[in-house]
């Protein structure tokens, strides 16, 4: 065989956890042993996580996937001539035709799993940097307008219109009021402190298509007049860190970052900064404090970060997916993007299916799909085979939804209407063995562990919340403690400085509301 065959194995953390690294090594070793030329390419994941480790072979008729593959399968795959798409029990055919994938609308995640995340050339070959090229030819205010027109809202959870935020920064004066110092600057900050339970889309994008994030942030820099950006990455994401650093180095070397972005004379620098394990640093103002080298502690707003953000300067702070959604908007136009979605929720949302589901992974779809479709048509129902009893959407502070609410469409306003939130698009499913009292207690405990400690309702309230729930669980003065819990949730919801304390009552109150039977007196010793 003279020409080598391209074989794709994911280097995404989820695939690695399932042994993709060993598979890759085994394929190379087997190829060597057989004298077969194989070009092994490590890509991101396609997002069909139950099929990882997934191996894709580039054949004349397209990519053919095999999965999940074990090391023990590798020899058999060669024997089955998988390099030419040969038949094997694990052969899946083209991923694009897989039912989990075929119905998706991949805009932001179009390249994830397809491209080599380290290769600028691969990125450009798959349509990358077209958005930036367009942006470089535009007035900054037109870039901002395109993002406004696209209807893109912050994908980190708060769903604030991204373009409006950019406009505020665009319109802000770069210098503080006094004439101090020569540095007049604005900043672009990416919140990559993805810490919600059941979420992984940020990581998946950074590991699978980091240039998309880099391009989005560069466009943001052009749009608002910032020359420096930071990616605040949680330290628990070492693979994403390596992927980003490699991509940044390559983007710089290829002239897509630095003093002269793609020969435009425009400057944009980007650095990765690692967090130190605090959930609260995913809250944007804590993140800014942490980025400044301070203790990660929530700031009050106003002033908004867009006016007074990093180092006191106007700052765009967006989530990874928000930035990564921008290149296609600039490439295909605002209308193209806003044509997806429903109501005021435009475009697509990368939904992360997790928990007790048969098929877990990433599903990018236009807004409007119902929870039920996602759970059953995509997720295939529960992994255990038992009925799905509750779903938590939007991370640990999201409300618990009962079966009766499964028809709620994925739409910011529709979720809000049922007292829930879409958040970062993470969906965690529970079957009928779940104990919602324990889940409610966990919400308070989570808040107690992760509270920055600045405001009183969150700092003391979360600890008291665990204690009150324990008394309820133990059947001690039940009515009094349920009333106290109600008051406490009111105090936390309306009194807290940020969303951590403010939203912690949501899972507690929703659990209590929809699953009151789980809050009956428990046997001694239960409830921790």
């Amino acid at each position, binding site marked *: 065989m003279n020409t080598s065959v391209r074989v794709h194995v994911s280097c995404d953390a989820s695939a690695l956890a399932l042994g993709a690294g060993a598979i890759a090594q085994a394929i190379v070793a087997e190829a060597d042993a057989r004298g077969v030329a194989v070009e092994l390419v490590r890509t991101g994941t396609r997002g069909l996580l139950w099929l990882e480790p997934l191996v894709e072979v580039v054949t004349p008729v397209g990519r053919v996937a095999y999965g999940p593959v074990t090391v023990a399968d590798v020899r058999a795959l060669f024997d089955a001539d998988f390099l030419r798409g040969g038949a094997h029990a694990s052969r899946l055919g083209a991923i694009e035709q897989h039912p989990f994938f075929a119905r998706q609308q991949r805009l932001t995640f179009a390249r994830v799993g397809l491209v080599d995340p380290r290769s600028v050339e691969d990125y450009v070959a798959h349509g990358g940097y077209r958005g930036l090229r367009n942006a470089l030819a535009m007035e900054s205010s037109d870039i901002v307008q395109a993002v406004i027109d696209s209807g893109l809202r912050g994908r980190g959870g708060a769903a604030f219109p991204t373009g409006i935020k950019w406009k505020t920064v665009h319109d802000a004066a770069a210098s503080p009021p006094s*004439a101090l110092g020569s540095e007049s600057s604005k900043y672009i900050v990416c919140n990559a402190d993805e810490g919600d339970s059941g979420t992984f889309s940020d990581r998946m994008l950074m590991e699978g298509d980091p240039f998309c994030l880099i391009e989005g942030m560069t466009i943001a820099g052009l749009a608002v007049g910032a020359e420096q950006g930071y990616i605040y990455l949680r330290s628990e994401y070492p693979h994403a860190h390596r992927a980003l650093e490699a991509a940044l180095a390559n983007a710089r070397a290829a002239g897509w970052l630095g003093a002269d972005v793609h020969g435009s004379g425009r400057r944009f620098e980007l650095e990765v900064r690692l967090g130190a394990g605090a959930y609260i640093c995913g809250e944007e103002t804590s993140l800014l404090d942490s980025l400044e080298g301070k203790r990660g502690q929530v700031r*009050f707003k106003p002033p908004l970060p867009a006016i007074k953000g990093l180092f006191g300067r106007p700052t765009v702070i967006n989530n990874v997916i928000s930035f990564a959604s921008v290149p296609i908007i600039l490439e295909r136009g605002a209308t193209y993007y806003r044509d997806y979605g429903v109501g005021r929720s435009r475009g697509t949302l990368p939904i992360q299916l997790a928990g007790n589901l048969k098929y877990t992974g990433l599903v990018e779809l236009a807004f409007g799909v119902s929870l039920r479709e996602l759970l059953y048509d995509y997720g295939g129902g529960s992994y255990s085979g038992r009925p799905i009893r509750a779903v938590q959407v939007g991370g640990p502070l999201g409300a618990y939804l009962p079966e009766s609410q499964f028809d709620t469409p994925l739409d910011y306003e529709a979720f809000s209407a049922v007292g829930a939130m879409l958040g970062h698009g993470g969906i965690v499913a529970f079957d009928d063995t779940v104990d919602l009292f324990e889940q409610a207690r966990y919400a308070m405990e989570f808040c107690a562990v992760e509270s920055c400690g600045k405001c009183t309702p969150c700092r003391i309230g979360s600890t008291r919340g665990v204690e009150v729930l324990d008394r309820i669980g133990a059947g001690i003065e039940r009515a009094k403690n349920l009333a106290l819990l109600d008051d406490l949730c009111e105090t936390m919801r309306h009194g807290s400085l940020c969303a951590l304390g403010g939203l912690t009552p949501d899972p507690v109150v929703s659990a209590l509301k929809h699953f009151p039977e789980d809050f009956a007196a428990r046997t001694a010793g239960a409830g921790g």
Partner: protein
Amino acid sequence: MRSIAETDLGTPKSAATVQVALTIDGVDVRVPAGTSVLRAAAEVGIDIPKLCATDLLDAFGSCRLCLVQIEGMKGFPASCTTPVAAGMKVTTQGGRIEQLRRGVMELYLSDHPLDAFAADLGSEMQRMAERIGVEDVRYGFAGASHARAIVHDREGREAAIHGGTSHEERERANPLFRPVDASNPYFTFDPAQCIVCSRCVRACDEQQGTLALTVQGRGFASTIVASQDDPFMQSECVSCGACVQACPTGALLEKSLIEQGQATRSVVTTCAYCGVGCSFRAEMRGDDLVRMVPNKDGQANHGHSCVKGRFATGYATHRERILKPMLRAKISDPWREVSWHEAIAHAATEFRRIQAKHGRDSIGGITSSRCTNEETYLVQKLVRAAFGSNNVDTCARVCHSPTGYGLKSTLGESAGTQDFDSVMQADVILVIGANPTDAHPVFASQMKRRLREGARLIVADPRRIDLVRTPHVAADFHLALRPGTNVALLNALAHVVVAEGLVDEAFVRARCEADAFARWRAFVADPAQSPEATEAVTGVPAAEVRAAARLYATGGNAAIYYGLGVTEHSQGSTAVMAIANLAMATANLGRVGVGVNPLRGQNNVQGSCDMGSFPHEFPGYRHVADDAVRATFEQAWGVPLQAEPGLRIPNMFEAALDGDFRALYIQGEDIAQSDPNTRHVTAALSAMECIVVQDLFLNETAKFAHVFLPGSTFLEKDGTFTNAERRVSRVRKVMEPRNSDGTRGYADWEITQLLSNAMGYPMHYAHPSEIMDEIARLTPTFAGISFARIDALGSIQWPCDAAHPDGTPTMHVDAFVRGKGRFMLTEYVPTSEKVNARYPLILTTGRILSQYNVGAQTRRTANNRWHGEDLLEIHPHDAEQRGIHEGDWVGITSRAGETVLHATISARMQPGVVYTTFHFPGSGANVITTENSDWATNCPEYKVTAVEVARVSQPSEWQKRFHAFDEQQQALLEQARDAALDTPH
């Protein structure tokens, strides 16, 4: 805990000029834009509950008690962090709001010691808890808590005490509980009472700028710690007390408050320490001082203070304070306690006797920069009018006399050009020969605040002073010059300004004398003044000098702050003039944010100079030879006055040794410790026949005295002090003078008056305000100043006259006081004090934060815990060459003498330079300083002494003699006290 006399408006005042109208609880309110809703409400008397908000600190938004409802806004915004907006409708009360506040307070109380309010000090926490009125803490007290040492087991039984030793006890001890930290001598920290509002942390960050405190841990485990969880005393804490003042609970509390209970009255007065002149509220319980609280409305300090002003007041009641007049015939005699009448009569008789025998000019007086303007004025009046000579001088001779001379020559007025607040508009700050964080700490905090905002900093100092690198502050340039080369460095900076075309030609043309400027330009343009040429002299790389000069000349508003590192040199006056030249050439004078600012050492050194303490000048810096001025004083005082300047302090010593000068009245200055070449000074003192010392303690000079008149502290009298910004502030009597001889006690001005009357020159002031009225009548720059006006305005910066009825914050605005600014030629002349093989090191001297000057006050307080002795700082290389290790005894030998100190090895020093402080008399720092002095003013060259340093095993001969003499004099004092006990008056 804040002052009992102040109300807290919650957030700082907005500086905006635009007014915003809104409605709060139906009340129409107009406040400046940028004001918080909380403050807007407070200003119309609507007191919204709060705990984390205080008007000395930026809003923080953590306690959530100040939640309100605002029409059109979601939820319950915190009023402290929400700025007012036009037309806003705010509701501060109502069911849901109050329910939320109760919810928050109930949470607070669930983690608060039950007995916290027992002392009834009226903390904000106590008042807020009472006001919000939580009847029942439904959470109970068995849950997680910082308030108890013990934890409950599963059955609810209380278990072990914190700090238990057995394994079981440790198991059951409450890991959240932290015991009281009483390590600081002045305050305690009880974490159990802490509500983690971060006011202490923010006070340390924002007000003090030390950033010693932090919140450790997060969530419920959050706790306030100093440095790396160290006891306060071992941490970076500088004990300024801002955190103690900020604390709304009893967590941080003055020990004096705990011991004495809450004060019942509060009197505004002015600090008697450094030249910053902080305004304080002396908080009193009966006649006892409970604590000093910096005055929020203080125009020099804005509610901030340092460890000296706030805490170091114990000297006022120290057992070593002398409270009875004493006499003795010769200094080897025991002291004898006498009545005021006898002491005054004796002094007056002796003075007249000596004058009769040795001539009118054989006696003189020394005024004190620690006493009030009124007292200083009276002493110089006593000398000029009653003694009949001009033999009056002051301790400013040895500190800022070159400032007076240098600034008068160039700008026309012997004072700094700005107020302190001006620094908040400076873009470039040049600090030369000053160490503000130690010597002027409250102003240093303000300067650091500006530096944290982004102002650029140039430090010219032989040592790497703290300001060079301190949290969130770093100097752009540290010009580490060799001691004694200020003038060469300043000329080099000026050379760059001229050679690189950075002179503001328009300003110079309009405001300065053309001929003098032309001469100066030619002088500094000479390549001999270039940084490259002077590098060999100063040791500062030419490139750094050039860059620093460019920054100073082009960086926006540039302000120079300087101290004794400029003046106490043989070319002190030259350096001051070089500074003024630099500022004039770059147009950095005559507006806010710029200027030439001497940092005055003592509380009233500016005032003592203003009041005519120098032998050649009447009050207001007017020469005694000026016939018209002299005629005015002759008419007012009713006696003929001398037209010839009198003796300066060093001349007095010379004359004493020659036998021409025989008697001296010294009010509040310790020349035997503070003047250079101690052996020379003590010889002169020993040669005199009658030395009258008026002081609080038996200081070094008093050991040579024949009459001791016990002075009064600043707490015991009325008057005024003038700080470094020419700010005249009131000193108010908070207690009766303690120096009663059994009949009554006297303030210092009254003692001078007694002496004058006894000498036959009548003085009949009933109150210091009458003295100030006389000063105002006779001194044009003080014409508009009176106690009533000061009381009305808070303080007044002179000049204050018909044209400037409220005083003058910024001088030389439209024209210089002398008309046209005058550039002076400033040729660098090296000091004759040179290093050589025998004395290869340069000794330079300075101060430290916790001690003040000769230490008479601070050494008699717990401040000794920070600095119990003067140390010799030496660079590691110099130490290693001499085999000196940390803590070794080292002998320091100069051409003048020898002394012994413990060494501390410090890379703050540059090789070849050693450093010490002079706070302890036994250190003998001035035994080794020489008699070299400023060519124009005789200000001693304290900052440059060639020395050698070597390891030794015992104190110097001088120190042994000093200690023997000290023991003898203390014994003579004890005899007076014993005798007094035997024969009560």
